[in-house]
């Protein structure tokens, strides 16, 4: 029951923000703008979904932004080589998952802290991307991909739909399957999980692979929306994603967090950005407000937990 109240809290926070922005500038409330927010945040949203499960097992993945950039470059390169779209997309998500696998194996088999491993990969993959793109962006021209992603179903863009479908999928995995229970168990008490015969390494590595996979998918949306790929793309994605996950009620100590919370957390950040931008507030204030929201949401969460 406490959890439910917490969920309401997040929703209330989101609705209050929407109402405040709406009152100040009615243009904000136009359905097209609200759907816009969903579309614009689908990329960081998908990255945050992967980050959520990583944080639930008590890990962290700082390499997400670099993986997104790298996968984007791979995809753009493949498309300029006229490789069929489906094949290019598949290779892109495989590359993303592969980076996740490296993260997971180094953390669990190499027994190096997640922070260090993913910090290292963040730098190495960024460097790799700059190297193979010669630090230039790769343009794919007017593309099939762009038109597919901009297709709208009932007014919702394809990008946003992918985000929603992935959210539902991961929510199902976490809440309805034993796999999800194991993830929560490992995050809550890794030692006890081991003593109960859960293959901690295996499940943890899978989690990092999923995070990499999500980055691969996010990079597809990124390339689609820019019609090009940049080696410098995705900077600070790791921090935005962590912020969304934490606002969504996860604990960096592991064992806590939910896809629903992250979904709302992403929207809260998106609404702030879009709202302030529409109100023509300089971006400095956005940073201040986001910082404030992160701390307040954790504070509310803490009060409900200790009470």
């Amino acid at each position, binding site marked *: *029951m406490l959890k*439910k*109240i917490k969920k*309401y809290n997040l*929703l*209330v926070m989101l*609705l*209050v923000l*929407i*109402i405040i922005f*709406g009152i100040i*500038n*009615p*243009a904000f*409330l*136009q*359905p*097209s*703008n609200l759907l*816009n927010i969903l579309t*614009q945040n689908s*990329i960081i949203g998908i990255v945050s979904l992967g980050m959520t499960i990583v944080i639930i097992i008590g890990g962290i993945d700082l390499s997400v932004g670099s993986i997104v950039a790298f996968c984007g470059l791979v995809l753009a390169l493949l498309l300029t080589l006229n490789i069929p779209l489906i094949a290019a997309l598949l290779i892109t998500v495989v590359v993303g998952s592969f980076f996740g696998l490296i993260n997971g194996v180094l953390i669990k088999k190499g027994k190096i802290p997640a922070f260090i491993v993913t910090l290292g990969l963040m730098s190495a993959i960024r460097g790799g991307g700059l190297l193979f793109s010669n630090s*230039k*962006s790769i*343009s794919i*021209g*007017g593309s099939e991909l*762009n038109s597919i992603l901009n297709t709208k179903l009932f007014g919702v863009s394809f990008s946003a739909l992918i985000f929603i479908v992935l959210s539902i999928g991961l929510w199902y995995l976490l809440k309805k399957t034993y796999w999800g229970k194991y993830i929560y168990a490992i995050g809550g008490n890794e030692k006890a999980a081991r003593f109960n015969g859960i293959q901690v390494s295996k499940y943890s590595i899978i989690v990092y692979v999923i995070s990499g996979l999500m980055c691969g998918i996010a990079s597809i949306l*990124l390339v689609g*929306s*820019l*019609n*090009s790929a*940049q080696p410098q*793309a995705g*900077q600070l994605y790791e921090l935005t994603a962590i912020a969304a996950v934490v606002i969504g009620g996860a604990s960096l100590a592991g064992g806590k967090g939910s896809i629903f919370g992250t979904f709302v957390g992403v929207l809260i950040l998106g609404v702030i950005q*879009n709202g302030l*931008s*529409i109100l*023509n507030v*300089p*971006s400095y204030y956005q940073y201040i407000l986001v910082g404030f929201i992160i701390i307040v949401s954790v504070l509310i969460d803490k009060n409900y937990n200790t009470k």
Partner: protein
Amino acid sequence: MNNKKSLLKALLIIIVIGLIGYFVYQSFLKKDSDSGVVKIGFLVPTLENPFFVDMTESAKNLENEKLKVFIQASQDELKQNQIIENFIAQGVDAICIVPINSESIIPAIIKANNANIPVINVDNKINLESAKNQGAVLATYIGSDNFEGGQSAGEYIAESINEQGKVAILEGVSGNDAAIKRKGGFEDVMKRYPNIQIVASQAADWNRQKAKDVFDAIMTANPDLDAVFAANDEMALGVIAAMKNKRIALDSIIVVGFDAADEAIKAVELGELNATIAQQPKLMGAEAVRLVLSIVKKESVKDSYSTPLKVIK
């Protein structure tokens, strides 16, 4: 506990109903209060660089009760596109863009086109060929002509070395539009002076460190060099660093940069750098707004306008 829960539920329901009501109200009520006001969205890469601060402030200074300018900045390709989407949602009448990337901005321009909002390209040029292929349309372009800037630098150098001697060029990233134009303008002027010889022309990628290394090699090959044109200030400062390292008197070689960056202007004042070519961001910002007003009044405009350059020496 139960009270609290039902209170929250009630609150939620009230909020949801309120929101729905508001939507309905919005859709019935046509806003006409802001008709006649021209709203311009102005997107630049950053407001940490004085160049763009000058540009946007001069645009903002033109604001009055019939004209509003909204300024946003981002150095991230995706965010730039999102800001344009937000401008569209906001219902602006025109959008001025200084793109961070000449390609990735195109999908956003197409969205503006679809919303019938004219887009004015300022300063950094959008890749016109790519835009054409994808069906994006620009209302007009305003910016400095890099070719002209290269010419100004050439004139200055020719004058400074009495129309004779050996000169070198440090180019920007190969293939970059500005790099090609600046070099082209400079070479165009040099052709007119038969006694001036271009002994070296190499790319140093806009980068100070690289310029230093490249210039080291040029000086070794040509110890009697008279002047060097660096296609941006970073590279010009790299040249000066290389000269200082080799203990070559700074006044023995004429060095000209481009962009009038703060550091370069200081170097000019100190007498280390001979000159830098300044674009005029204030003029660009103000001209962009004036062009918008012409476009909104359905007056015809040219495809491209250039703002003059100044030599700071």
